[in-house]
């Protein structure tokens, strides 16, 4: 019997190997109910493999997993009955219409799924093209049809693997709107992506994965807490500016950007105080400062730091 757990997905020591290649390496994942959970990692980090295991598409080499409180793959039919997913590019029978493809997908779901076909076509804006062959659809339309297919089961959990791949900016915007609507309805979203900006805009919880291992996991605010000091300096001579501030003991890292510098502060440093110090040093060195902007370290920056460090360790 499934219990109404705080987490909709729980894995322990989940591992998947293909011969000597370890794609997923001892993953302990907790996806809170009702969250928008980003599973972030560079290409080849094992994101798709993890989602494939959670959906029963491939068997784990070791470890345990529970979806909606039910052990997988033992109770897969019950666990997945209220899960909708898009893994990589959604596949369709191209010689059939969008509506017929949904009919086929609904046949594998609960009987009520057939009653939702018109509604989900309307939701994704494909009602007008529902009876056209999928072979005539654009990639964006196929992606939307994939989303419609996910919604047929009225899912509690949506697992989307790189869902914006191939979408134009308008399609991405539209997709974000749909996702926000699902989250507002109380569904849990698991979004696997290498687009960190995408995850920052949609998700409230994140796990960062590299080479099959989770290297950081928590809420967005938890992950960006502790090192929130960064200052962007826009000036006339970045090289001269670098020389002027290099000796400042409050700085952890300095990098040149297109029209100036971006500095990272040590955790104990005060953002405002250091900003004032830097301004004084730069003006004193004869650097014309156009803009001096304190900011928080983005998730993207933190993600790149982690993966870069891991790369350096190997």
């Amino acid at each position, binding site marked *: 019997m499934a219990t109404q757990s705080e987490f909709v997905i729980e894995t322990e020591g989940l591992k998947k190997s293909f011969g000597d290649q370890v794609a997923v390496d001892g993953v302990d994942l907790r996806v809170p109910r009702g969250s928008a959970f980003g599973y972030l990692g560079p290409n080849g980090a094992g994101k798709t493999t993890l989602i*494939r295991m959670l*959906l*029963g*598409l*491939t068997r784990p080499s070791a470890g345990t997993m529970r979806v909606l409180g039910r052990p997988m793959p033992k109770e*897969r*039919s*019950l*666990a*997945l*009955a*209220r*899960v909708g*997913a898009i*893994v990589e*590019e*959604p*596949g*369709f*029978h*191209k*010689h*059939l219409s969008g509506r*017929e*493809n949904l*009919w*086929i*997908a*609904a*046949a*594998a*779901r*609960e*009987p*009520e799924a*057939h*009653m939702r076909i018109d509604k989900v076509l309307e939701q994704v804006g494909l009602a007008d093209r529902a009876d056209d062959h999928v072979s005539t659809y654009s990639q964006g339309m196929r992606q939307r049809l994939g989303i419609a*297919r996910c919604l047929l*089961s*009225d*899912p*509690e959990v949506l697992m989307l693997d790189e869902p914006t791949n191939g979408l134009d900016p308008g399609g991405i915007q539209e997709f974000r709107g749909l996702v926000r609507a699902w989250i507002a*309805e*109380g*569904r849990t979203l698991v979004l696997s992506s290498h687009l960190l900006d995408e995850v920052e805009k949609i998700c409230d919880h994140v796990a960062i994965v590299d080479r099959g291992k989770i290297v950081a996991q928590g809420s967005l605010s938890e992950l960006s807490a502790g090192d929130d000091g960064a200052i962007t300096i826009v000036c006339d001579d970045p090289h001269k500016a670098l020389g002027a501030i290099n000796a400042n003991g409050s700085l952890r890292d300095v990098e040149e950007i297109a029209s100036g510098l971006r500095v990272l502060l040590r955790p104990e440093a005060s953002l405002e105080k250091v900003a004032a110090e830097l301004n004084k040093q730069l003006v004193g060195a004869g650097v014309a400062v156009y803009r001096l902007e304190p900011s928080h370290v983005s998730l993207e920056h933190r993600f790149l730091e982690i993966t870069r460090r891991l790369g350096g360790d190997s």
Partner: protein
Amino acid sequence: MTTPESTVQLPRSLRIPFRLERAELLKLRKSRGVWIPTALLTIGAMVVMYTAIELFHVYNSSKYGPAGGTLNFERAMFLMGQLAGMIAAALVGAAAGTQDLSSGVFRDLVSSGRSRTRLFLARIPGGLALLLPLVAVAYAIAAVLTVVLAGGLATPSVTLFIKTGLWVLLSAGIVYVVSLGLGSLVGTRAATISILIAYLLPVQGIIRNISVLGRARDGLLSVAVERLSPVPPPDPHDVISMSLSTSLIVLVLWVGIFGGLGLWRTQTRDA
């Protein structure tokens, strides 16, 4: 969103029966690459055969007999039960066994949580629902033309008509399940069709004529199917005699082995 507990159950009267089987049929019947060659190999083959014989008869009735009558019916049924119908069944079975994989839909069906065994088993009635009506129509055309174009020739008895009809349906059904299993095992339509056509056309014929193989030839699909035929083969010297029980065992093994392999691969394949 509704919670599982609050989901409203659809009244039984509004539920659609055999949904997975209907879905399989929908995929196949809407595929022109499947149903057109199947119709040509079944209905088309019968129409062409009877039309050609009748034209010869009209052209030179002293040399060529009428298209109807028992002998031509037997030939037509052998064409259907041992060649064209088998190839048609192989085409439909290969498509049924591979189309979800090649389109990428298999992954979605599996991730619905539906049992893989159920997904595989639904393909059997789903594909037969396309194949057998076409075979039945072809058979009906042959039966009608056998009587209508008989001229003065004798026509088969009602019993023979019924037995022969059942035999061609059985033959197509067996090859369909074998092809479905092989398709599900191999995973690609082109490879499945190539293997089956190679086996059904040259390979089987060659093995059948290697008399040194003796009773080992009883394992051939065409030999076992032929044993069940209610009509004699066109070439009586080509008959390999075997008992009815052996024939049934061989056919059960063909269906069981290939059906079992297809099911096993469907259950274990990474989607």
